[in-house]
């Protein structure tokens, strides 16, 4: 009758820390596309699982990429 209330949160490890990435390239759109939603919004840290430093680097890279029209600011919803 009672729901299993306690969901064990999966501990995510930042992929960039794991690979020891120190520069996230704004030109690498295939990588950055993994961190934006299909609306073009940047995925939250709790979704992407990045650490704060790398999440910030990703966000900066996405923003640079948008300025150069490599990624959309907005994408039409499907």
């Amino acid at each position: 009758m009672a729901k299993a209330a306690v969901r064990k949160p999966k501990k995510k490890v930042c992929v960039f820390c794991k690979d020891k990435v120190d520069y996230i390239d704004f030109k690498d759109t295939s990588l950055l596309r993994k961190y934006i939603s299909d609306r073009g919004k940047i995925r939250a840290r709790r979704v992407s699982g990045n650490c704060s430093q790398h999440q910030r680097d990703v966000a900066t890279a996405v923003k640079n990429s948008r300025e150069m029209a490599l990624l959309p600011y907005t994408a039409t919803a499907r």
Partner: protein
Amino acid sequence: MGSTLARHYELMVILDADLEERTVSPSLDQYLGVVRQGGGVVEKVDVWGRRRLSYEIQKNHEGIYAVIDLHAEPAVVAELDRQLLLNESVLRTKVIRLPEPKKPRQPRRVAA
């Protein structure tokens, strides 16, 4: 080579897609003369070619992308960027300062 403040930059340019793709690298090279005169070094010019823009820029749906890797002083790069933007067939530019490859490890905490 005697420049003291030469830094590693990456310059990305979006050009009007109406240009001939073959004429892109010679005409870019003309602009890069500024860098060479200013004591900088152009490492690499990479013309990506025509690419669809994610959104319209000045009524253009397409653009020719080019990425230039260079070492130069900040003032030289600023001048290059200024000159590029004066050209009407340049839709957009972006200058990124790349991280220096070698980083001397600093001791994070020095015991006092």
